[in-house]
C-alpha cells in the first residue's frame, strides 16, 4: 500500500475563487492510502514546495498528488521537488484542477465536486505508479534553420557564433527573404539593404554556416537531439561551384519576358537569372518553365557565353541527408492575394498596388530605380491614397484574417512620410481604423508623419475605387470624424494587405509534428513563458511563422530561438523520457501492428527462442522497443491487438484505474 500525500493549490484566486480548496483537501484526505492532505495559496512557490518536502519526510510518503494547474505548466517543478526530498520523480501525479476545472466552471459546488473527482483519479493512478529511471540519449551538435529570411539569418548567425554548425535551407535561389525587397525600415529609416546584406555575406563567409539555397526540406525523422532530415536541392541547371555570378548569361538569354518575382511582376527577368545584385549565393538559376533549352532543346546560348563552364542542362534534383540536434522554423510570411477585395480595383488598375509593390516602386534597386512613378503610364503621381487593414481584423465568417497584421500601421506611416519628404508636391491620405503603434519610438514616428510631413490621416475606410480612363482613381471613403463621405481623385492607391504564413508552413508542420493555429501560424509551447519553442521538443520558432512581426521583433525572437538551440546543443546528453513503451514478449504475437503506427521508428522485431511444454523450444517473432528512440506517444499500445504493448508511467491498468475512479461517482 502506498503512503500518499495530497497537496491542493489555490493558485491565488485562479483555483480558489471557483473551487472550495479546503473541501477538496478534506475530501481527498479520506481516500484510501492518503496519509496527509493539505492546501496552500501557491504550491509552486518555495514555501509551497517546502510543505511538500517536509510532508514526504515527516509522513514517509511513497507517492504524491498535486491538485494544481496543467502538468504542462508545473509537472517538472513538482517532480524536482519530490526528487530533492528523496522520492522518485515519477511517483508524482498532477490533477489539473485549473485549466480543466476552475477556469471553465462558474458554479463553485460543481467545480469543487469535479476537483475532488479529478483528485481521486490521480490518487488511483499513484497507487499503481512505480519508480522510473530516465535513460540518456546523445545530441547531434548541429542545427537546421528552415527559411533564410532575416529571422533565419539572425538565428543561424547567433548559433554559429556560439561555435555550433548550422545549415540554412532556403527555397528561393538566394537567402534574404522579404527584407531584401524593402526600401527603408521604420522607425529609424535606415536602408534595409545596408543592414541586411552584410548579414547575408556573414552567413556565406561563416565556416560554421552552410547554406542550402533553392532547396526544400522533404522529410524529417527522429526526435530532439537526433533529427534525421532529407533536403531536396532543386536543380539550378548551373554548377554552383563553378558559377562566378558574373551575369554574362543573364544578359544574353533571349527569353526576357518572364515576370520578375523579386519585383513582384512589376518588370521582367530572363529565363536564367540572379534575383538581385547582392544575392547570396550569387549563382545563376535557370527557370525550367521558361528556358527554351530545357523545354525543347533549342538555344543553349547561356552555355556558350559562360566562360566558367558552369551551365549544366542535365543537372538533377539532389537529395542530401543530414543529422541535426535542433530545428528552427523561420518560414516567414506573405501578403494575402487581393482577388477578393476588388472594390479597391486592384485587378482593374495597375496604379492600385499592394504595399510590398510600393516598396519595390520606391526602392533604389527596384524597377523604377527608386523614382516614384505610376506603373500604368510612368508618370509622377500627385495624390496618393493609402488604405490600411485590407483583409486584416475581419470576422471569422468573412473572407479576411481575424488578426491584426501588426506591421501595416508603421510601414504605411513610413511610406506616407517618405512620399512627402521626397516629393513635397504630393498630397498623401491614409485611411485608418486605428493607428496601432506600440513600440519603442513608434508612436513618435507616426506623429512625425502627421505633424512634420503633413500626411492626411482620415479615420475611416475606403468603400470603392473607380479607375477612370484619364488615369485618375476615384476614391470613395468615409471620414467618420467629419461624418462625411469623401471623394478623392487619386493617382495611386496603396493597399496594406494582411499578411499570412507562407504556404510551405502547413506541410512542414506535419513533417515536424509541430502544432499550428487555425491561421497556420506555428504555436508556441507557452504564449508567455516559452514563446520561441514549439511544444514538440527540439523544434524552435523564429520570426513571422509564429505570428505577425516586424523586423525588430523578428530579430529579437531569432536571437531568443538561437539561445534556446545553443542551450540544447551545449548538452552532451539529453535525459530521455522514461515513460516509454515495452512489449510483454510472452503475449506478443509478432503481428507488426505496433511497428506500422510508430512515428519514430522505435520498434523492431527479433526472433527469440522460447521454452515450450515438454522441454521443447520454439522460435517466435516478438517486438522490441528501442527506449532511446521511443517518445512515449502510446500509439503502439492502442494498436496492439494482444495487449502485449504497454507504456511505463501510463500503463493500461493505471489509465483504467483513473477511469474507474472517475466513474465510481
Amino acid at each position, binding site marked *: 500500500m502506498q503512503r500518499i500525500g495530497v497537496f491542493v493549490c489555490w493558485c491565488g484566486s485562479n483555483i480558489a475563487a471557483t473551487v472550495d480548496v479546503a473541501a477538496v483537501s478534506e475530501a481527498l484526505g479520506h481516500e484510501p492510502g492518503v496519509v496527509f492532505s493539505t492546501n496552500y495559496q501557491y504550491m509552486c512557490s518555495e514555501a509551497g514546495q517546502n510543505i511538500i518536502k517536509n510532508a514526504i519526510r515527516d509522513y514517509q510518503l511513497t507517492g504524491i498528488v498535486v491538485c494544481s494547474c496543467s502538468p504542462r505548466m508545473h509537472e517538472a517543478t513538482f517532480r524536482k521537488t519530490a526528487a530533492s526530498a528523496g522520492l522518485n520523480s515519477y511517483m508524482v501525479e498532477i490533477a489539473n484542477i485549473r485549466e480543466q476545472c476552475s477556469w471553465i466552471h462558474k458554479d463553485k459546488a460543481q467545480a469543487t465536486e469535479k476537483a475532488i473527482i479529478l483528485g481521486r483519479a490521480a490518487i488511483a493512478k499513484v497507487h499503481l505508479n512505480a519508480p522510473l529511471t530516465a535513460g540518456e540519449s546523445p545530441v547531434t551538435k548541429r542545427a537546421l534553420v528552415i527559411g533564410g529570411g532575416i529571422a533565419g539569418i539572425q538565428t543561424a548567425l547567433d548559433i554559429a557564433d556560439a561555435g555550433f554548425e548550422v545549415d540554412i535551407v532556403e527555397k528561393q535561389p538566394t537567402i534574404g527573404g522579404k527584407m531584401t525587397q524593402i526600401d527603408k525600415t521604420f522607425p529609424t529609416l535606415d536602408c534595409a539593404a545596408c543592414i541586411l546584406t552584410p548579414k547575408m555575406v556573414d552567413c556565406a563567409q561563416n565556416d560554421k554556416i552552410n547554406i542550402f539555397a533553392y532547396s526544400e526540406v522533404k522529410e524529417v525523422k527522429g526526435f530532439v537531439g537526433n533529427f534525421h532530415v532529407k533536403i531536396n536541392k532543386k536543380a539550378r541547371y548551373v554548377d554552383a561551384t563553378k558559377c562566378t555570378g558574373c551575369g554574362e548569361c543573364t544578359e544574353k538569354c533571349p527569353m526576357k519576358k518572364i515576370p520578375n518575382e523579386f519585383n513582384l511582376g512589376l518588370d521582367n527577368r530572363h529565363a536564367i537569372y540572379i534575383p538581385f545584385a547582392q544575392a547570396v549565393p550569387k549563382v545563376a538559376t535557370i527557370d525550367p518553365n521558361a528556358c527554351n533549352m530545357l523545354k525543347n532543346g533549342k538555344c543553349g546560348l547561356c552555355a556558350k557565353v559562360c566562360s566558367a563552364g558552369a551551365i549544366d542542362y542535365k543537372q538533377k534534383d539532389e537529395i542530401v541527408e543530414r543529422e541535426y540536434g535542433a530545428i528552427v522554423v523561420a518560414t516567414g510570411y506573405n501578403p494575402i492575394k487581393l482577388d*477578393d477585395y476588388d472594390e479597391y480595383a486592384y*485587378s482593374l488598375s495597375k496604379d492600385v498596388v499592394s504595399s510590398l509593390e510600393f516598396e519595390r516602386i520606391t526602392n533604389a534597386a527596384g524597377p523604377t530605380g527608386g523614382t516614384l512613378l505610376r506603373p500604368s503610364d510612368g508618370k509622377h503621381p500627385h495624390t496618393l491614397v493609402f488604405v490600411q487593414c485590407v483583409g486584416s481584423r475581419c470576422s471569422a465568417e468573412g473572407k479576411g484574417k481575424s488578426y491584426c497584421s501588426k506591421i501595416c500601421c508603421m510601414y504605411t506611416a513610413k511610406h506616407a512620410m517618405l512620399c512627402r519628404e521626397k516629393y513635397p508636391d504630393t498630397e498623401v491620405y491614409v485611411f485608418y481604423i486605428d493607428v496601432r503603434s506600440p513600440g519603442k519610438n513608434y508612436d513618435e514616428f507616426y506623429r512625425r508623419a502627421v505633424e512634420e510631413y503633413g500626411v492626411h490621416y482620415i479615420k475611416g475606410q475606403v468603400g*470603392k475605387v*473607380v*479607375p477612370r*480612363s484619364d488615369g485618375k482613381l476615384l476614391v470613395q471613403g468615409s471620414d467618420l470624424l467629419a461624418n462625411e463621405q469623401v471623394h478623392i481623385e487619386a493617382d495611386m492607391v496603396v493597399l496594406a494587405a494582411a499578411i499570412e504564413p507562407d504556404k510551405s508552413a502547413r506541410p512542414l508542420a506535419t513533417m515536424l509534428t509541430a502544432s499550428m493555429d487555425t491561421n497556420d501560424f506555428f504555436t508556441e509551447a507557452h504564449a508567455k513563458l516559452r514563446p520561441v519553442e514549439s511544444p514538440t521538443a527540439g523544434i524552435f520558432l523564429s520570426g513571422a511563422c509564429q505570428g505577425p512581426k516586424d523586423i525588430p521583433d523578428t530579430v529579437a525572437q531569432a536571437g531568443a530561438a538561437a539561445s534556446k538551440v545553443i542551450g540544447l546543443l551545449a548538452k552532451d546528453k539529453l535525459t530521455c523520457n522514461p515513460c516509454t513503451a515495452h512489449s510483454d514478449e510472452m503475449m506478443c504475437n509478432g503481428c507488426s501492428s505496433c511497428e506500422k503506427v510508430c512515428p519514430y521508428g522505435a520498434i523492431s522485431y527479433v526472433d527469440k527462442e522460447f521454452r515450450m511444454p515438454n522441454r521443447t523450444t520454439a522460435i517466435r517473432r516478438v517486438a522490441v522497443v528501442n527506449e532511446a528512440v521511443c517518445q512515449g506517444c502510446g500509439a503502439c499500445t492502442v494498436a496492439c491487438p494482444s495487449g502485449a504493448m504497454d507504456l511505463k508511467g501510463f500503463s493500461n491498468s493505471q489509465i483504467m484505474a483513473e477511469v474507474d475512479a472517475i466513474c465510481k461517482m
Partner: protein
Amino acid sequence: MNFSYYPGCTLKNKAQDLDRWARLSAEALGIHLEELETWQCCGGAYSMGKDEIASKLASVRALQAAKEKGQDLVTLCSACHNVLKQANDAMANDPDFSLRANNYMALDTPYKGETKVIHYLELLRDVVGFDNLKKAVKNPLKGKKIAAYYGCLLLRPGKVMQMDNPENPRIMEDFIRAIGAEPVLWANRNECCGGYAVLEDKAIAVKKSTAVMDNAADQQAEMLITACPLCLYNLTKNSASETRLPVKYFTELLAEALGVKE
C-alpha cells in the same frame, strides 16, 4: 434537358423580350425550360426581417413546386433570382424561419431548401458550358466592346448567392467572350443603379445610373448588358450621362449570336 423555370412578374409584362429570347436560346442549346404552373410574384425584394414570414412564402411555394418536379429551378430576372436564392438559403439554414414557413405551408414533407436555384447565366456556364456555347454561336458579335452590368442583386450577398466572386466577377465577361464580343472591365459594374428608390426619390436613381453609365462610357464600352429589368429602366430612362449607351438584356445578344432572334 429539362429545368423548372420561374419567369417573374416583369418578364410577363414590361420585360417580355428578356424572357422570349432566353427561351428561344435555351431551346437552341437543347435545354427546355418548363415554366412553373402556379408561380406567384416574389415581391421584388427579399424581406430581410427575420420575423417576416408571409412575404417570403411565394418564393417557398415556387421552390417546393420545383422540388416536386425533381428539377433545378432556373431564374432570369436578377431580383427574382436574389429573392428565391435568399429564401432558399433561409429555408435551409435558418431553423426558426424554416419551421414557421413550413407551418404555413402544411406540406406532407417539410421543405428544407432542397431545390437548387440557378440563374440563367449559371445555366450557360455550368450546364451548357461557355466553350460549348461558343461552338454553338452562329453570328459571333465580333469586335463589339460590351460592358457587363451586374448591378447589386445578381451577386450579393455573395455568401448566399454563391454565383461568382462578388467583387471580381467574370461570369458575364466569359459570356461576352463566348458570343464573340469583347468584355470591358469597369469598376461600377457591381454598383447600384438606384433601384426601386426611383419611386421614392428620382434624384437618387439619376445620380446612381449616371455614375454607372459614365463609368462604362469612360471605359470605351459600346453597349451595356444586364439581366435586370429595373437596371435597364434606370440606365435608359434616368441616366443623365452625356453618352447614352444602349442597354440590352444579355439574352437578346445571346439570341442574336445563336441566330434565333426573329
